[in-house]
């Protein structure tokens, strides 16, 4: 079968090309309708899960300093590997809803302050022991200990106590939080035997694959765990392997030469080239990650609301998406929230590039002289180019932007969250509450726009304790409007996650929660025989 036909038939199977279009394109390639139809059915058949084989991923984001201790995970490789060998109480689905995982059901008291999780029975750890509510309590204790270095400490901060009650685990919170179950999806909160208190780096969990080789910064291998509780739903390949390939060119070459079956982080500027490689499918999905220009609302000259509005109107968002993301993304609306979040209101007016309005507000602000924007190539891919584009679109509104390029080493400690106007990125959070609490709440450590708004803070705390979804949605709408109109953040674009798979990979699920199919690519996908 020619590569092109092969590719087209797989597109149909994935639902990305209609049957009629396929037959048309096949005819153009000189293939009869009968033969083309038979190709289609074999491609569709191949979409059923296939067992066995070794599924390999080449991934950016691993280093020899990585560890199997979930508390230490920061970068892509250790925690994407962790998603295969460990499991949390719940799991966020591609549609943003929660699925039960090691908890079968959950509920809260009327004031959303006490949450009860029923723990699944008959789940085995890789060492043969049964998972119990005690293990869950111990895990939560380890990650919420004030001396812990766990990356989940911030998430666990609002929890007062975690106690076992029969076959349930009860969380008592300091303040009401309707989103608590979402927090339990955090990748640090893998349930470990005894909470991992004795041996945090043992790499023993309840996931579909058990750890057999762990060479940090080189490769990680898991084999199928025969007693996995969720049976056939996850873990199709007999073995999975993550090879750490931090160099983008090497990663693409490894996919092309068939050494790996999937890769993460295809750079937008080479996507169109990779797409043309026979047998390679680009898997891009809209996510919650976004690039930001951040101005400190409490520092002159940015303490002037008109200047902030002028800077917002001077941003040409469409051009940014087209040039910086090569179309692999969507325009932002000066709030960190987009349609990928639950309880998002899509009726907020989209801010557009408007040099006249920008000039009007700029004049009204009374600001004189250039505005200094600090940037660096580590701020986000294409950050320098974005600063220059912004410089040009702002110039048309009569605003002079002076771009200062800072060294990448030290950008996050010396410039971001320190200097009044700079570029940065955010990876997004599972819920609106978490995103706002992390970076827009007046008391947040990472309030990188120095946004102190009483009304916003009040709404945030209110919404957190509100169990009525319609009311919460309305509150979040108000909060988004406040940030959009009064905040110091300019959000020109939300970037897609761009991964790529070879023709041997079946069962890819687009999942915008994280790259690599929400992090589950290796256990969701299978090798087409």
């Amino acid at each position, binding site marked *: 079968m020619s590569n092109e036909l092969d590719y087209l038939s797989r597109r149909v199977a994935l639902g990305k090309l209609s049957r009629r279009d396929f037959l048309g394109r096949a005819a153009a390639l000189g293939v009869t309708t009968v033969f083309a139809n038979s190709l289609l059915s074999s491609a569709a058949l191949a979409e059923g899960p296939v067992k066995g084989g070794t599924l390999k991923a080449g991934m950016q984001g691993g*280093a*020899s300093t990585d560890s199997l201790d979930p508390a230490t995970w920061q970068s892509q490789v250790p925690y994407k590997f962790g998603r295969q060998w460990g499991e949390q109480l719940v799991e966020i689905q591609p549609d943003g809803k929660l699925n039960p995982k090691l908890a079968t059901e959950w509920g809260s008291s009327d004031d959303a302050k006490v949450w009860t999780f029923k723990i699944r029975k008959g789940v085995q750890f890789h060492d043969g022991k049964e998972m119990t509510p005690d293990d869950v309590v111990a895990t939560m204790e380890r990650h919420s200990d004030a001396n812990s270095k766990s990356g989940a400490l911030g998430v666990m901060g609002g929890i007062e106590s975690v106690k076992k009650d029969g076959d349930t685990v009860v969380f008592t919170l300091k303040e009401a939080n309707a989103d608590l179950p979402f927090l339990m999806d955090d990748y640090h909160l893998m349930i470990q035997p005894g909470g991992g208190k004795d041996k945090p780096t043992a790499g023993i969990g309840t996931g579909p694959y058990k750890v057999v080789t762990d060479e940090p*910064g080189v490769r990680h291998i898991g084999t199928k765990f025969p007693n996995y509780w969720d049976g056939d739903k996850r873990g199709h390949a007999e073995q999975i392997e993550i090879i750490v390939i931090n160099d983008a060119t090497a990663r693409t070459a*490894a996919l092309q030469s068939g050494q790996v079956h999937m890769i993460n982080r295809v750079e937008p500027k080479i996507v169109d080239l990779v797409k043309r490689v026979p047998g390679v499918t680009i898997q891009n999905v809209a996510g919650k990650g976004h690039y930001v220009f951040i101005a400190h609302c409490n520092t002159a000259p940015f303490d002037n609301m008109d200047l902030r509005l002028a800077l917002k109107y001077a941003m040409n968002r469409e051009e940014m998406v087209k040039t910086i993301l090569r179309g692999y993304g969507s325009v932002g609306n000066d709030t960190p929230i987009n349609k990928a979040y639950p309880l998002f209101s899509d009726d907020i007016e989209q801010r557009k590039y408007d040099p006249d309005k920008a000039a009007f507000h700029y004049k009204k602000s009374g600001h004189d002289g250039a505005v200094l924007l600090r940037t660096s190539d580590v701020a986000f891919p294409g950050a320098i180019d974005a600063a220059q584009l912004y410089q040009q679109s702002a110039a048309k509104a009569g605003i002079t932007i002076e771009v200062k390029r800072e060294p990448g080493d030290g950008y996050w400690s010396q410039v971001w969250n320190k200097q009044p106007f700079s570029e940065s990125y955010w990876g997004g959070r599972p819920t609106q509450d978490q995103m706002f609490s992390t970076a827009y709440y007046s008391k947040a450590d990472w309030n990188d726009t120095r946004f102190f708004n009483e009304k916003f803070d009040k709404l945030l705390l209110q919404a957190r304790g509100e169990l009525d979804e319609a009311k919460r949605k309305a509150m979040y709408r108000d909060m988004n409007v406040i940030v959009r109109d009064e905040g110091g953040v300019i959000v020109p674009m939300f970037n897609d996650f761009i991964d790529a798979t070879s023709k041997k990979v079946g069962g890819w699920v687009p999942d915008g929660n994280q790259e690599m199919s929400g992090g589950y690519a290796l256990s969701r996908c299978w090798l087409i025989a």
Partner: protein
Amino acid sequence: MSTPVLKLVAQRIAMGVLLLLAVSVLIFVGTQILPGDVAQSILGQSATPQALENLRRDMGLNDPAYIRYFRWLGGILTGNLGTALSSGQDIATSLKDRLWNTLFLASAAAVVSVPLAIGLGLLAVRYRNGPVDKIISGLGLASTSLPEFFTGYLLIYFVAVQLQWFPSVSTVYEGMPFGERLSAIALPVTVLTLVVLAHMMRMTRAAILNVMQSAYIETAELKGLTPLQIITRHAFPNAIAPIVNVVMLNLAFLIVGVVVVEVIFVYPGMGQYLVDHVAKRDVPVVQACGLVFAAVYISLNIVADIVAIVSNPRLRHPK
């Protein structure tokens, strides 16, 4: 072997040990003057003064610098390099694997490049100033002038992706069959060979040409020896010292300077290991790597010196 040679060799070795000690002081001082101390890097931004104080006391960081230096040095001499801050693993254990991988890659590259370079150098002298010499020198210089990442990517594209002869990802691991291992490192070895080839080849050529001006070469010619015999029997042995020097320099480069090649081919060697730990400010690992690199450099240079001494007949047979 006669006493003057032994004496000279012993001197060289003693000098090397002293030099290594001096380097260890430099490394220690260098990492001390970095802002923040080890306790701070372990605890990170959220460190409380009390926790910092406790950890400093536990780790003995409150002692004067010279005491800490000797404690560190004592640890190294007894094979205890300490534990990595970032992963809590024993440095000696993880470093050993990485060093072994690096030495494996370097020796494979040396096995290919050294005989090739010297052979080509001899050929160039034999046909000096002719087309063969010009072609050898030209190609050698061209391959050295191209940056490693460029030749690396070219090889990946043509040999790994198009022809699929060798893998582009050179991950090696313990228990890998030797044949597979060789196939995995074929491309990085090629790149490294191309990088170091010209330097050694040109030096061989220059050193031998220098000797070829001597009166005894003329005598050999008058005896009726063939040009190749003259080169291999009379010129080469007398040119060994400078050739060994440049060979050792290149071997040292193969061990301590291959981080770019390691990144491109995803080879788990020392360079990548060092860079990862520098990024995480993992000072004990950086110190250990620095010392290993210094030791490699110094010992290879000692070997070069010793070879030069031993190959010098005037030193071997004093009057």
